[in-house]
């Protein structure tokens, strides 16, 4: 299933035809990283894309470095005819496979991951595929910083099967000699050769030549936005709201939802601390903590869930395009009701939960397209990021990051009360889930909590939603205790601030405790919502000037209660 931005009558996607992206670059220039990132993005868009790696294919055919003929990577002196024939054969076989993907398997984009450092070879490739109507683009990755290259060798190449059983230093040295060898015969891509994209030092500089077409320019914009700085992305669902499954009611959080919001903040802080400890223990040099940025949708329940963060001065951005999937005419209906009222639609929905669009609703596909600007911004952001969102939105974004095929998007399970941590790694991402809340709103008796877009109605339907769907709920590691602990700690700090401020006020204000006392119950009991002692005190001032001066007996009794809470 494809996910074009629009539907065409001819059924062709994007009007882009077939595209072959040929990577160009010396070894260890991050070609594979770029290829995989691009593949992930294009697949998420619904374009049938595959990376064909010459290196992988050679290893598959010939085995590790030790079983390759000695002159296989040799460039200075001519290789033996047998080796050349072998090289040609491997290349030709791989290119046959690419052609097969285009013609037989219905693929649209192939990323041909190889060095292709030679003008003549590139010309041959361009002729071979260009003459058959494939649009060929060169994607050159250039890197002139030795530290980046060495880091790349160490992090990626040493684990390659080529170096199974080698010592690290020996392997690095061998790899450098392989690079040096090729540098001599390497030709950079020039404007005469055809359309190209050049990426310098992983996105620092991008040069684009004669790139036309929708998909092609999308690829450029994507490559412009990616970076490799380490950071972490967190996902959590919004808290329970007063009216849970109505798109239109856009209701406030329930009392449990407010508690959830506080706990979420504590959990995120605790997790970030723990992660830092881990990295320190692993011997990493840590600089300043990466600041945390928070995105929520413009829905009340999502923004309210971020309120404790807003209140403590974190930067919280509301993004209207991150609203949950629009259920259209099914809004407010249960699965059973939707099934009863719209039997035809329901059948079609079950047949394809990803692409089906109920009347006036959005399909997951529509949602993916809507979220695309978010994906770019997500790639670009360098801070740590917490996304407080809706199940459907989180499913799409996680599916993109993890690289799930579109039909599995509706099956991603993520319960309210889990914090999912995503850390970009060299060829993909690492995901972990943490459970921090078991209270109200987490889910039904079986822990399932899937009401957005009726995904629960499709589970257990055999091939429709395969069991391979990522289930964060099942993998979640429990960190509830730490989160609670963190929350308690914060409460103590807050109480301390209030206490100090009050003491100060009492000593200045002539010692009549009754003046400020009436606000205390609110302060203490309401401090789930209040993280900011200063704010509380200002509120307190309002009261002093207001009606509470010269408090009544009722207020006196409240004072007593409040003070006793403060004594704890």
């Amino acid at each position: 299933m494809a996910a074009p931005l629009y539907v065409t009558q001819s059924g062709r996607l994007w009007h882009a035809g077939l595209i072959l992206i040929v990577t160009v670059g010396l070894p260890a220039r991050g070609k594979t990283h770029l290829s995989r990132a691009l593949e992930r993005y294009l697949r998420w868009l619904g374009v049938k894309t595959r990376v064909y790696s010459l290196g992988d294919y050679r290893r598959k055919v010939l085995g590790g470095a030790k079983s390759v003929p000695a002159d296989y990577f040799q460039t200075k002196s001519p290789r033996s005819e047998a080796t050349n024939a072998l090289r040609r054969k491997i290349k030709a076989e791989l290119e046959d496979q690419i052609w097969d993907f285009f013609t037989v398997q219905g693929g649209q984009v192939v990323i041909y991951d190889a060095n292709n450092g030679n003008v003549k070879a590139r010309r041959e490739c361009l002729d071979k595929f260009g003459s058959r109507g494939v649009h060929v683009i060169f994607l050159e990755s250039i890197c002139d910083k030795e530290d980046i290259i060495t880091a790349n060798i160490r992090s990626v190449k040493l684990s390659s099967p080529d170096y199974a059983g080698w010592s690290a230093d020996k392997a690095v040295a061998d790899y450098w000699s392989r690079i040096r060898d090729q540098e001599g015969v390497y030709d950079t891509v020039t404007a005469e050769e055809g359309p190209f994209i050049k990426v310098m030092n992983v996105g620092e500089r991008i040069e684009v030549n004669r790139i036309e077409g929708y998909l092609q320019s999308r690829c450029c914009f994507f490559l412009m936005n990616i970076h490799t700085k380490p950071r972490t992305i967190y996902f959590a669902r919004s808290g329970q709201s007063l009216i849970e499954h109505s798109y239109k009611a856009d209701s406030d959080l329930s009392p449990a939802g407010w508690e959830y919001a506080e706990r979420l903040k504590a959990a995120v802080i605790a997790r970030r601390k723990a992660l830092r400890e881990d990295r320190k223990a692993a011997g990493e040099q840590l600089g300043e903590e990466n600041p945390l940025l928070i995105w929520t949708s413009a829905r009340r329940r999502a923004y309210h869930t971020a309120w404790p963060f807003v209140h403590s001065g974190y930067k919280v951005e509301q993004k209207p395009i991150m609203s949950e999937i629009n259920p259209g005419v099914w809004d407010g209906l249960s699965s059973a009701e939707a099934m009863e009222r719209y039997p035809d639609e329901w059948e079609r929905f079950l047949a394809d939960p990803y692409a089906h669009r109920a009347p006036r609703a959005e399909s997951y596909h529509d949602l993916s397209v809507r979220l695309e600007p978010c994906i770019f911004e997500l790639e670009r952001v360098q801070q740590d990021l917490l996304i407080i969102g809706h199940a459907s939105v989180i499913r799409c974004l996680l599916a993109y990051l993890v690289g799930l095929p579109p039909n599995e998007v509706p099956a991603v399970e993520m319960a309210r009360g889990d914090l999912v941590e995503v850390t970009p790694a060299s060829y993909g991402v690492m995901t972990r889930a943490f459970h921090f809340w078991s209270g109200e709103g987490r889910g039904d008796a079986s822990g399932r909590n899937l009401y957005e877009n009726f995904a629960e109605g499709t589970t257990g339907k055999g091939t429709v939603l395969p069991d391979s769907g990522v289930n964060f709920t099942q993998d979640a590691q429990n960190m509830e205790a730490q989160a609670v602990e963190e929350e308690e700690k914060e409460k103590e700090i807050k109480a301390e601030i209030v206490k100090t401020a009050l003491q100060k006020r009492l000593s200045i204000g002539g010692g009549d405790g009754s003046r400020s006392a009436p606000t205390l119950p609110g302060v203490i009991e309401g401090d789930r919502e209040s993280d900011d002692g200063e704010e509380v005190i200002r509120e307190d001032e309002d009261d002093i000037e207001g009606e509470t001066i010269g408090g009544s007996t009722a207020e006196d009794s409240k004072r007593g209660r409040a003070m006793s809470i403060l004594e704890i």
Partner: protein
Amino acid sequence: MTGMPPPPAPMTSLPRSQSQSRGSKTPKTPRSPNLRPSSSNSLMSDLNVPPIPVEPQVLENAIKNLDVLRSTKTPSSTTAPSPAASGASSPSGSHMPGADKVAAAIGAALSGEPKTISAPGTPHFGAQSDLLKALDDTTKVFRQTSMAPTRAPSVSGIGTVVEKPDYSEAKIVVAMVGLPARGKSYLSNKLMRYLRWLEYNVEVFNVGQLRRSKARTQQQQGQGKADHSATWFSHSNAEANLAREKLAEESLESLIAWLKKEGNVGIMDATNSTFDRRDKIRERLSHEPNLQLLFIESFCNDPAVIAANIALKVQSGDPDYAGMSREEAERDFRKRIDAYESVYQTITEPGISFCRILNVGQQVTMNRIQGYLQSRVAFYLMNLHLKPRSIYLSRHGESMYNVEGKIGGDSDLSPRGWEYAKALPALVKDNIGDGPLEVWTSTLQRTQQTGSLLPFEKKTWKSLDELDAGVCDGMTYEEIEEKYPEDYESRDEDKFNYRYRGGESYRDVVVRLEPVIMELERQENILIIGHQAILRCLYAYFLALPQEELPYIVIPLHTLIKITPMAYGCHEERYHLPIAAVDTHRPKPQKAGAGGSHPHSRKQSVIDVGETVSRAPVSRDYFGDLSKVMGDATSVGVEQATEQLMRAKESGELTPKVGKRVVQ
């Protein structure tokens, strides 16, 4: 952790903090600038209700009510647990006493929906029924009890005014680089239009204009006409060099001052053609840590593009060439270019942020593009082209909802709407000739039906769907005004920023349309069959109209708008088809003292096709009575129209669903 204990599925528990002692005197406004309640039945009034004490009984009742609301089902529903029941309340929730009553009420509300031939609206918690008010009343208690002294903004009613997001962090100096007649001003203006549409504060600082205005003052003060012929631009003219240098500095200083005060993006439109000059800019900005610097070089080696630009410059009545013949002026201008060209140094400096554009989009180089806004700018520039083309905008033909005066929905075309759909192909053909054209529609029936007879390639965009009116979908303005008079007024006060509850604001629509604009820039001839709010947003982009005017732009039904991008701005023509339709335009209600009867005062060249208008367009007054107006002006009433359509449908005269292309 498969063995996680299943959480209890309790009824909504009592909020722990029942006692309330918040000061009732001055309500605190939320700290966030992003949301502010606007209507009096929103947060403000909630705060003015004396909140203490809330009796436990009241609270308990509220919870009960809420659970009833939550588990409300239509009478026909089966016993399978609804998601709400499984998610939030106990299975017995739906059998609580009182539930039946509410359920019956809702059932009545549902079955009371007027039967239309279109897909039904979404009644659940829509503002038509009393459910929404019941919900708000019930949850008011929670809003009073469970919040701390400072609270997040709450929701009630049918929407709120949402303030513009904070863009104050974005501060960019965009310095243009390029020889004269390389389209620098074109790119600057285009960029300004795009970013202003996205609500950034953008200003172009044109050094040439500054020079000319200075010369004018000089002349007025009787100091003689300044010589700004090519000799002034010669690099060997030391005195002029100094003067030009000073001008550039002055322009940059005023740009920086403006950026620091209020601006987001200041575009310095000057040649900046040497390393030396660019170094000076960088040096100056190194003292401004909060300002980012981005160079945009427009490089042209296509003689055709350059010649066209020169011709434009000479024709445009440039004051530098006042009193010169065209040939003379062109000769002098070419000399000026030569003067610059002799010292021109293309951008090669390493380590600076730049975007180098060859022949407007043919080749683009980007270097160190940092930050979100910069990358947006770069991507935008990448998508531009100079090929001549036009963009056609048309609303769908009149729909049944239009006739009934309802907003939103997914209704079919009215008979008159179908007339328009039938007339459209000839009109478009007349205009476009044999040129290529692509038709874009939304996913809603009315636009697809309108486009169904057009013999062109079609694309369907979800992002072109009409502004989502949330809980008000399917209502008439009269109903909204009657049920929610205060909300109705507050929307009129700030229509651009007003977000319908569970729906969208005009700003949300602009954000959603941004990818469409990007794609439009890349394309050639496009016809968009859209909706009123959508076309207002697109139109505002092309004609650079400010946000306050945007929601009041007149986009009548049965009118084709042709927009042709020109060098500086867009040319517009309107073709009105003489097929009657209701008028869905609602002008901004006049307040006493507010000046200007019509905010949209731009001159429009309206060209009527057809000699006479056969039927006077029906003017529908949304504050008045529809039947009165319609009775006089047209032969077709609502009921008749519906009947006609039904008959036509049955007899197979119309092609109601789209997808089938009608071959003519």
